[in-house]
């Protein structure tokens, strides 16, 4: 286990450095990057000054990278738009995004796994085929389009607001009503964000189950007289769910990508909307910090998933 841990840590470190270099290259070396702006006479001296402060343009190129890295992690990068520290702006909003994503993830796992198991029990039956088709439909639907149709429908049918963290007018509402209002405003975007995940994960669970039930140890369990139910839900399901641990890490980039669109549609004050507003305002320090942080979070998520997998399945450790 120690060797396994050491090797993974080394890989993690390497990837981390790679992420930071790539982020830095995109922001400083790409054509049209903010550095090019400093050559533009129309750009105000104030912005140029900020740019020089942010990127240490007077230093040699390798020093620029290390100084940028230091600033990134010590919170010394400032927004172009309002001059506030980037990390502070992110900290304000990250909980909203985490809450939204947590709820979406819970919805995904609590629906997708039972659906996948249900389909795998009766492969190629009518219900399974319906599930397959439904999953493809879910994978193919543009999220923002569905969101608009849902907003159109709820506003027309119920006349109830759906945008933002909560309704604007909350005077005269009792506490439970306010709580319900918050839950309603949370559940709608979270469910739409979860659709892709449900479709993908339910298919994954299904094929994983179909793979496992053909294994010898399942035949052994059956032949020693255990009931179908026990074999299926205990022996097979546990093994089929093992690889799902590794999916945890990959959920993060998908959810952050999804947050950008969904938070913009639902006016949800989170990281995704902040990122989009920063892109619109060409507020590069904010954009790059969010990009780098989400890559690092993904990396850590993958690392934890790897470790968990190593703990859950001893075969992995000795590869």
């Amino acid at each position, binding site marked *: 286990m120690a060797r396994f841990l050491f090797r993974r840590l080394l890989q993690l470190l390497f990837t981390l450095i790679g992420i930071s270099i790539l982020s830095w290259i995109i922001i400083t070396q790409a054509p049209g990057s903010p550095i090019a702006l400093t050559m533009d006479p129309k750009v105000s001296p104030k912005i140029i000054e900020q740019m020089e402060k942010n990127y240490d343009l007077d230093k040699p190129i390798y020093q620029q990278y290390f100084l940028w890295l230091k600033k990134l992690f010590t919170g010394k990068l400032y927004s172009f738009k309002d001059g506030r520290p980037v990390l502070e702006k992110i900290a304000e909003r990250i909980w909203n995004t985490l809450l939204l994503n947590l709820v979406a993830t819970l919805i995904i796992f609590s629906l997708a796994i039972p659906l996948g198991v249900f389909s795998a029990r009766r492969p190629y039956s009518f219900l399974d085929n319906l599930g397959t088709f439904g999953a*493809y439909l879910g994978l193919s639907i543009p999220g923002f*389009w569905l969101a608009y*149709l849902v907003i159109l429908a709820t506003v027309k049918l119920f006349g109830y607001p759906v945008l933002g963290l909560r309704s604007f007018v909350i005077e005269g509402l009792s506490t439970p009503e306010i709580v319900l209002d918050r839950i309603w405003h949370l559940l709608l975007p979270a469910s739409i964000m979860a659709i892709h995940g449900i479709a993908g994960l339910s298919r994954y669970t299904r094929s994983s189950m179909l793979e496992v039930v053909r294994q010898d140890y399942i035949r052994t369990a059956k032949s020693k007289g255990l009931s179908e139910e026990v074999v299926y839900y205990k022996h097979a399901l546990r093994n089929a769910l093992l690889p799902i641990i590794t999916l945890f890490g990959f959920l993060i980039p998908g959810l952050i*990508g999804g947050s950008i669109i969904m938070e913009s549609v639902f006016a949800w004050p989170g990281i995704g909307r902040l990122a989009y507003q920063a892109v619109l305002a060409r507020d590069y320090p904010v954009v790059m910090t*969010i*990009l780098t942080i*989400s*890559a690092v979070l993904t990396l850590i998520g993958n690392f934890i998933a790897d470790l968990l997998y190593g703990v859950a399945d001893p075969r992995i450790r000795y590869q």
Partner: protein
Amino acid sequence: MNERGMTSQIKFFWKYFKRNRLAVGGLTIILIIFIVAGTAPFLAPYDPGKTDVSLKLKPPSLKHYLGTDQLGRDVFSRMLYGARISLSVGFVAVGISIFIGILVGAIAGYYGRWVDSLLMRLVDIMFCFPTFFLILTVVALLGPSIFNIMVIIGLTSWMGTARFVRAEFLSLKERDFVQAARALGLNDRRIIFRHILPNALAPVFVTATLDVATAILVEAGLSFLGFGVQPPAPSWGNILTEGRTYIFDAWWLTVFPGLAILLTVLSFNLVGEGLRDSLDPRLRGRR
């Protein structure tokens, strides 16, 4: 592989593929969309760019099958031309990503050792970035032209292909026919591209088909955020996005382009899965 071997392979593949009715349905729809995109100038009843404010926001009728938009342009004609743009974004982007993916995967898998480690770490690094946000950022930096969008989607989505191709190469390079090719003194380039690669293409076809679907969705998402193919050029994404301002008065501006995207993406996904089932010998005959 000689010519006859190739045709019998295709026949063999088709035998399995056609059993999957959903995939065949998807393929039919894709062919129809291709024909429609190719013949758009003949099929379109109106010039897609012709504005007529007296006709603005008219609901679907026999004269304008899918209604008109806020500038009085015929939505049906715009959608026909939009099919061209959405499909080209999908195909060119995937062409680029497949090219890079095959190159990286082949080199990593064939040479192994430190080349492999280095390239696979690069794949890991790229996989860590939230792809959609990365694409949005770079498109915003470079400017949202259709060319930039295709190239950037291609440059950020090759990692899956690279991994598949590498895995195939790792096992194929140990096989006897590769040893034989080496013994004949063929150079690496010829062994990689003429001998190993043709045998490693099956998973590439599958990911390519699925990636076309993803690329079309990404373009629509970019359009929605204002960084897709720019108007007045019609893409399904930007027709939909322009229409959302009028969502309460003109539902057809939102519903039809969305349905077109959904149907196309769905078809590519179904065909991709059909390909996977019929190209993977382990999955054959399960039905």
